[in-house]
């Protein structure tokens, strides 16, 4: 059945992706939820939360707040927090609750900005899409709000999409300063699917490559290989000489896709690819092995935090 998961747990959702992009930017991040979604972000999908405190808050919505659409109360709570906490800007991140009640994010931005003197960046996410979509929306919202048309500083290189959800501990944070100067960067690198989306949104030339896997083929990959990860990880391994098909649960851009590559959604699709593909090696997060316990070939554990939650 479409949408039924019998073996795997759900992958990182869009609100986690959005929060992951915003986490290192000195923003006051407000997740518009009752608490559960924030718990999921900080308690599970944000490995940096355990080491560095960041201003991630839940809106603390209650049923009547949602039913009556008390945006004014939310704006007042944000104003109160901004009076006591230093922040460069406020980011409001969507969840299933505002998706259900049809929150108007543009109106919410205006409402909050009327109360405070700093920019408000709404990121439209709904908990039903995957993390790469949330990362993409966060990049777009940041670019719209902060990217200078003619930056004063010309940065050599900015890497987009190298977030913990794709790369775990090997992530590279970007700063608000990077976003401000992004249009003037000499080189833009898309390190994951959301990086490609962000670069395309900027309308600039860019390089698609994973800095982690560039000329760095994980030990054990031999023969015909199925790589299941972010598409850029797959492409980088292919470019490094791995004979592989790419399968991804996330997004597959035309700029990456070759014959044999597939974007999948369901557990059964992965099972069928492994069963019918005749692969010598599967390079994928080890948690996916539970889907194909009878697979006898070579398995290389290619960790993906967004899939398994393992750093």
């Amino acid at each position, binding site marked *: *059945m479409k*949408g*039924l*998961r*019998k073996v795997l*747990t*759900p*992958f*990182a*959702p*869009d*609100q*986690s992706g959005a929060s992951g992009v915003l986490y290192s930017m000195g923003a006051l991040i*407000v997740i518009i*939820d*009752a*608490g*559960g*979604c*924030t*718990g*999921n*972000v*900080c*308690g*599970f*999908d944000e490995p940096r*939360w355990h080491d560095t*405190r960041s*201003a*991630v*808050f*839940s*809106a*603390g*919505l*209650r*049923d009547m707040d*949602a*039913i009556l659409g008390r945006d004014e109360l939310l704006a007042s*709570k*944000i104003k*109160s*927090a901004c009076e*006591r*906490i*230093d922040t460069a800007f406020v980011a409001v991140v969507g*969840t*299933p*609750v505002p*998706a*259900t*009640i049809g929150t108007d994010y543009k109106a919410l931005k205006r409402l909050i900005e009327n109360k405070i003197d700093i920019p408000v960046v709404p990121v439209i996410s*709904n*908990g*039903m*899409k*995957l993390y790469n979509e949330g990362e993409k929306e966060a990049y777009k919202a940041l670019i719209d709000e902060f990217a200078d048309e003619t930056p004063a500083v010309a940065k050599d290189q900015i890497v987009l999409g190298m977030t913990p959800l794709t790369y775990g501990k090997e992530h590279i944070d970007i700063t608000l300063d990077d976003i401000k100067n992004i249009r003037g960067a000499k080189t833009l690198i898309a390190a994951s699917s959301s990086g490609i989306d962000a670069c395309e949104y900027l309308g600039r030339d860019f390089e698609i490559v994973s800095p982690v896997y560039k000329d760095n083929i994980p030990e054990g990959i031999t023969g015909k290989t199925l790589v299941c990860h972010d598409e850029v990880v797959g492409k980088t391994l292919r470019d490094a000489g791995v004979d592989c098909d790419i399968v991804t649960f996330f997004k597959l851009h035309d700029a990456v896709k070759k014959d044999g590559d597939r974007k999948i959604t369901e557990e059964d699709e992965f099972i069928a690819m492994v069963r019918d593909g005749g692969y010598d090696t599967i390079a994928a997060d080890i948690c996916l092995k539970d889907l194909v316990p009878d697979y006898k070939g070579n398995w290389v554990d290619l960790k993906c935090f967004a899939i*398994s*939650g393992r750093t």
Partner: protein
Amino acid sequence: MKHEAVFFTAEEILKRGKAGIPDELLSGKNLVYSSPATLAYNSPGAEGFGVKRAGLSVPESVMLIVAPGCCGRNTSLISSMPEYKNRFFYLEMSEPDLVTGRHLNKIPDAIKEVLAFLKDNGKKVPKVVMICITCVDALLGTDMDRVCRKAEDALTGGEYEGIKVRPCYMYALTREGRRPPMVHVRQTIYSLLEPMEKDPRSVNIIGGFAPLENTELITYLKSAGIRNIRQISTCKTFEEFLDMARANFNIVIDPEARAAAEDMNKNLNIPYIELTRVYSTDKISSQYKALASVAGIDIIDSEEKAEADEAVNKLKAAYPDLTFNIGECTNANAFELALSLVRMGFKVDEIYATLAPENFVYVKNLALLSPDTKIFCNMEPTMLYYKISSSKAQVTIGKDAKFYCPDIPNIAWNQDTRPFGYQGVRDLMNKVFEALKEAEA
């Protein structure tokens, strides 16, 4: 900007009175800071026994989480535990589902597919399927009782006939409502019981999802001739669980089980007695006297009380000026524990907890004995700026207290198994003693 965490002393709060508790200490007045405590209690499925684990405390049950993917994401923390393998399944909602509600129509077929999957893979077919739904369906006003009835009907006449389907509401939105998720899930669980012949020598202890261990309460009940003391966590099979309907009375050890106990009183004719977990040995003694009187049994608690008092005295003798910081992510009411510790002769420098009006009585008494005790709210946004350097504590209690004071010896005291009564006091004192000795070494 001060860059300081907001706090109020017990004396300041007493002066303001119960009606004047500062907004900074109350829930619902501010954005919610992400501390370990708020992550646990804001998210009814996040950790400890939230709705998901609670629902699966029914023996031989599985859970189908019908929700946006984000709601089930952190379940992998739980499903990696051996006892939950092959017990969580997910039917992910899509954006069209949100508009059309068609995810609800898919539930009966999804259940059948899950049951077939278990059977085909040589797993045990469950007796109960819990359907866990979340905030979206709360807002859509989904009638889950009807959805579950339809799902049961769909199993009728087939190989899975008789399997019960029940709703679990993981509605974080209703956490402060009339029936919060953790109240509701207990009602759902015990609603599975059906009237049975009573056994006058059977008692249930309800409220927890892990067993009470080594507590004197069990000993007292056995000494009074109670042969069957049932807790849901010790029932190995669904049939054993159903035997809880034979109880002569229920002992409720968590106020969140009160509504379930009321239901059982009404539907199964099982009356209940409520006992509270406290850390004052005098209060514990009073509770046991009340239990003995109501249940018509004899309870002689002098030995256990002496043991608990001895543990207190041992700690006091070794560390006469011991100062605590206390969090709420712990098997205690932080305010009651603070008051009890102060009455034992210790000091409490800081408390990290949300001050619900029902806890004002503890703060009031605390203010008389320890007016300078500082009270912070775990939820309050300025906790981002909390600095340990200002605290005088030598030991902390609670997982959240460790988060704020990482360099001080800590007793998390948030284990699944619940401490209770004199055993709780004794074990906590001994743990503190050991932690301090270990830190010295």
